[in-house]
């Protein structure tokens, strides 16, 4: 009975090995490429990558599918991908927090050297906002009110160590009132926005698309220049936040495990550039108020390593 087993599995192995060797001679990609989103389906990152996947598939000339591996603020997906063979068929979309902040504040099995950066795709400015009905018209009003009544006001976040947390901390720390506001973490942006609408929390920082979903008033934006859509809202630097806190930048890009074949890397990076430039994805980005920022593999590698070191200062300043 077990003999029968053995023969079948041997036969299967031989047949498969034959198919594999003939496949290796052909070109990349031989099978669908998997883009891993390190957060739950339905979030901002998930949406961006699901919009990106069709354009990427076309540019690459193969199939592309998206999967979600949520958990540990994105570190579960990154930790799992870091240990895989770099074959180019599995890429992760890591945001700035997953790639550079989490490995420096948590005990995770990856770091700066675990990756072959492929390309950067987006950089969405974070906006600190309050309820439209709130008495704070500007960031100065808010700072004054916080100083008058220390401990009364709360800011929310989508979770400890998330970008929403980091941005609010950077703003209040930069304005010198972090000790006077309290932090209330939620599980995801949805519940936090509900709490904003209900008045449970007074401040929350997130991307423009999420801010637009409710009736909210922007106070300060983390960007080098003012946004076209909100010309009256000051940038972090204008509001008096010093660098490096003012330089908070929510970029995100594709990563493969380290030591990916440079030929495949360049092929992926090129396809990524074509996809970002495609009309289809450009229109998508415009509708979702996403700021696109493509870097090819080489310049993204340099940028990523510099960010990793620069953000050390940010993490310390934010007291994480």
């Amino acid at each position: 009975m077990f003999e029968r087993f053995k023969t079948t599995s041997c036969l299967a192995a031989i047949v498969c090995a034959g198919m594999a060797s003939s496949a290796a001679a052909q070109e990349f990609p031989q099978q669908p490429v998997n883009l891993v989103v390190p957060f739950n389906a339905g979030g901002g990152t998930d949406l961006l990558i699901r919009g990106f996947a069709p354009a990427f598939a076309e540019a690459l000339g193969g199939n592309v599918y998206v999967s979600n591996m949520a958990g540990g603020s994105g570190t579960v997906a990154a930790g799992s991908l870091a240990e895989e063979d770099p074959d180019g068929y599995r890429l992760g979309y890591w945001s700035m927090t997953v790639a550079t902040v989490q490995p420096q504040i948590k005990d995770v099995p990856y770091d700066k050297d675990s990756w072959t950066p492929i390309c950067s795709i987006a950089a969405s400015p974070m906006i600190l906002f309050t309820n439209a009905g709130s008495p704070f018209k500007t960031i100065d009003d808010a700072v004054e009110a916080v100083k008058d009544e220390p401990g009364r006001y709360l800011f929310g976040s989508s979770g400890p160590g998330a970008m929403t947390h980091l941005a609010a901390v950077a703003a209040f720390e930069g304005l010198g009132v972090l000790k006077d506001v309290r932090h209330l973490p939620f599980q995801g942006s949805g519940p936090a926005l509900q709490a904003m609408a209900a008045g449970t929390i007074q401040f929350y920082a997130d991307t423009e698309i999420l801010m637009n979903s409710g009736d909210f008033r922007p106070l300060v934006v983390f960007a080098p220049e003012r946004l076209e859509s909100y010309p009256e809202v000051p940038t972090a630097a204008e509001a008096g936040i010093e660098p490096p806190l003012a330089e908070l930048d929510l970029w995100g890009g594709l990563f493969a495990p380290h030591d990916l074949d440079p030929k495949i890397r360049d092929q992926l990076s090129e396809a990524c550039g074509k996809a970002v430039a495609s009309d289809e994805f450009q229109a998508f980005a415009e509708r979702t108020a996403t700021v696109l920022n493509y870097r090819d593999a080489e310049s993204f590698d340099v940028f990523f390593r510099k960010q990793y070191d620069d953000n050390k200062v940010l993490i310390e300043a934010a007291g994480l």
Partner: protein
Amino acid sequence: MLNTLPEALSIIFTLEGLLVLVLGTFLGIVLGALPGIGSTVAVAMVMPFTLTMGQAPAILLLLAIYAGSVYGGSVSAILINTPGTPQSAATCFDGFPMAQRGEAGLALGWATVASIIGGVVSAIVLILAAPTLAAFALNFGPIETFALVLLGLTCIVSVSEGSMLKGLIAGTIGLFLAVVGGDPITGEARFTFGQFQLLAGFDLLAVVIGVFAITEVLMRVSGPLDSSNRLTDFKGVVLPRFRDWSGRVKVLVKSVLIGNGIGILPGTGAATAAFISYAEAKRSSPNRAAFGRGEPDGIIASEAANNAVTGGALVPTMALGIPGDAVTAVMLATLTLHGITPGVRLMSDNPVLMGAIFTGFLLINLILLPLGMAVGKIAAPILRLPEAFMLVGIVLLSTVGVYFVRGNPFDLLVMVTAGIFGFILRRQGYPMAPLVIGMVLGPTLEISLRQGLILTNGSFGAFYAGHPIALVLGMITIVMLALPAVNRMRARQGADS
């Protein structure tokens, strides 16, 4: 809202509109019935296809998948004791015992009718009262949520009939399992014992499928098994006769209201609604004695409530532009992609589109009936295979389902370990349903408790003092806990005299 109806109907009754409704609902049922592919995964899978569609068909397709998958989850819960989604876990409690009795078709019939009524009523409530209800839902802060979840936990008492002590232990183990992983307030690792993978905690669905499906497989093979025997005798959905409804209408109405109400609230969800509704039915139904042994009222309570959540969850989404859960978040994103700004002005700015969406949602719930029957017909021959084959099928499908939750092989180990652990406990008479309830409610219980303590500066007393809604919920909780004891005392007194 109603004056835009003619225009709204002209959007739906096109070839594309109807095709989207029928195919979407059908696909939703099939995906929901596969263990592990819950509503969120199903909706996210389909989302990219909607980018090339018109505004109304895009949203209608997502709604069809959503409503279909919630119903589909009950199919596998009843037929193979494997909830396709956590929200149909409560459907297993009575659905599977009915199927074992040879009444699988009828159990599905009850589930179908209850689902449809739950969905239709919630659609009507959505159409008529969304803005008002959404405003009310904002009164639900962390403290009110805490009180509500505590009420949900009383469900553990009502589902652990065999041995109250063992039920409570299983429920508390569930609460503990939910604690493992990163702390929701500070992010620190808890009980991970250096295991990086545990930082994200145990995946809920991996544990649910482990203790229901894998444990069930182990229980079956450990007992004598006739290889010609069938797991369930199922020939298709059998609708309950009209007169069978007598005495059950009250349970239905209550369950729909509970599901709808909880669906509107932020951060609780369909599984909580199903559990609370089940507990309430068990407390008040005239047939309560038969609960857990295949009582249709239990199926009605669970299915009417979890389908009523669908419409409820859309209330804050459509009226405030704020997503209630991951599924509605995908819908809002899709609206944005089609150039519609979700938000407080969504309904007033797009009355025709909203009319079409709401009417479409009503239609989707109505076509669940024929489509559900069709899916039953397709599934029937597969389910007539010998039991040994079915058990292998359950193991393979469970593996597939858990793998798809987040593509993490570690979750498969969690599923198997939970299955073996569940088997050891179930052999000794520990019920598994409380464990799942504890695990579903645990995270919300903890974060709402600690958020509440942050808000009140650490005073638990202030929880009930300044919050009338929480106070009422707290009193209901006490009544729910005290009732069984009071009933027992009354029964004893009655026996004495």
